[in-house]
């Protein structure tokens, strides 16, 4: 059964005197326990899909829902069941790593003892033990990304929405996260992630949808078929 449903959504952004279409009549479904990779070159509309599902952006037309909740009409309920890591890392500079995790866990409704336990798990999972007392503004880009992903997993959401999730991670950390995300998927978590990295799709995705100019160019195709079209490069640059 579908945990994410997107039904003919369109979105255009105002740019100066005109509008730039980002999505056009896009439809997709992702089931519980499935991982869908949204592949496509820059400007294909991948991030817009993630932002609409994350309740950050409204579609102009069409509907989308998560766990049965409409992302516009029931946005508050949607936010209780999604874990999000956007393309830009969303952290505040003065917080210390453990403090940031603890505060967010409490904002998701965990009691302080439960939040503390969960923070320890995330610190271990994300390889943040050495940085747990450091301020965010002192962390390297890769460590910030690991903390950002840790925040997305903190409350064990049934639906994960990730935009270029491992783009700034070193190869070792990337593989660790892929392994963890695969485990979550196998436990029933629904994952939708946007990526330009075909390797990432190969490692994680059950299904692939390729976006070009805001519309699904191909869906449910093997990753190998994507390589056939885009060549052997790991990163998609042009349709």
């Amino acid at each position: 059964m579908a945990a994410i449903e997107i039904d003919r959504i369109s979105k255009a952004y105002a740019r100066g005197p005109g509008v730039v279409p980002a999505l056009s009549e896009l439809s997709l479904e992702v089931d519980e326990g499935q991982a869908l990779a949204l592949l496509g070159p820059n400007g294909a509309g991948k991030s817009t899909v993630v932002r609409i599902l994350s309740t950050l952006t409204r579609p102009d037309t069409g509907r989308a829902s998560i766990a049965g909740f409409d992302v516009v009409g029931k946005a508050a309920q949607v936010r209780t069941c999604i874990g999000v890591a956007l393309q830009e890392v969303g952290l505040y500079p003065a917080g210390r790593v453990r403090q940031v995790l603890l505060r967010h866990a409490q904002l998701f409704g965990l009691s302080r003892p439960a939040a503390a336990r969960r923070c320890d798990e995330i610190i271990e999972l994300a390889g943040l033990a050495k940085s747990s007392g450091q301020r965010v503004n002192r962390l390297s880009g890769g460590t910030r990304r690991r903390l950002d992903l840790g925040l997305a997993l903190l409350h064990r959401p049934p639906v994960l929405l990730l935009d270029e999730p491992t783009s700034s991670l070193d190869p070792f950390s990337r593989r660790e996260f892929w392994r963890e995300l695969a485990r979550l998927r196998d436990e029933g978590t629904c994952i939708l992630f946007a990526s330009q990295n075909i390797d990432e799709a190969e490692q994680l995705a059950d299904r692939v949808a390729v976006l070009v100019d805001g519309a699904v160019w191909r869906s449910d195709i093997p990753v190998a078929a994507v390589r056939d079209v885009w060549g052997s490069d790991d990163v998609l640059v042009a349709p």
Partner: protein
Amino acid sequence: MTSLSLPEPRSLSGFPVHPPSWLLQVNLLTRRVMVESLRSPVLILNLLLALLFLVVYDGTVGGVPLLVSFAGGNYYNFILPAAILAASVGGGAAGLLLVSDIRSGYLSRQLTMPIRRSALVASLVLTSAFQVVLQATIVILVGIALGADPRTGLLGIACVLALAFVWGLGFAAYSVTVAIVTRDMQMTSAANLIFIPLIFLSPLLVPYEYLKPWMQTAADFNPARYVTEGMRSLLIEGWDGQMLIDALAASLAFGLVMGAVALAVIRSRLLGIDR
């Protein structure tokens, strides 16, 4: 669309998925914002500006016998409210923090979480109002060290700080509104300069009766007039119920209007931090 398989969020391993109460949200968010704002140099700059008001005005016109007579012989008592209102620019830190959160992407993260929009605004506004009180306290202490002698004592000073807090809430809400609309650090910072007409179109340097008619009319519509006069009455004349009611009403009206505008703007604009 067909009916969906997950009617409500999963609750795993005993972790509740219900978001905390509004008050707990405000508490958690305020503690974060407080840490950020206390690390900002804006706090020190605002305080220096307020102290500059105190010292420069006393040095410039504090020796004029007529003016000193308005102040019961002590011009520091007369000019202290102006310095406190200048400190209210500290409320503008709320907007600057919000722009910083928008730029860093942290606001987007918060907006994907089950956090009430009103809790977000409240945490920013409360932090800035506390900041205004902190600065006002330092200004009063420096004023006393320089020679001010508040007529109503400690209780009167507490009332002055309460007025500063309510005024700070309004100023912070105004700053948040500008930040959401412009999403620009320089614009938000420049918008804080509204404090200049607010405090100068009021009985800042001389009592209301000595203002020219057009200035009196402007002051009549300026909430800063009533706050200044209320504080001044506590510092110079003693307890005056009507003055206090007017000052509190003006601060509350300013705070409520600015708060309502900020909430309306945040609700209409923040869903889409569309890029």
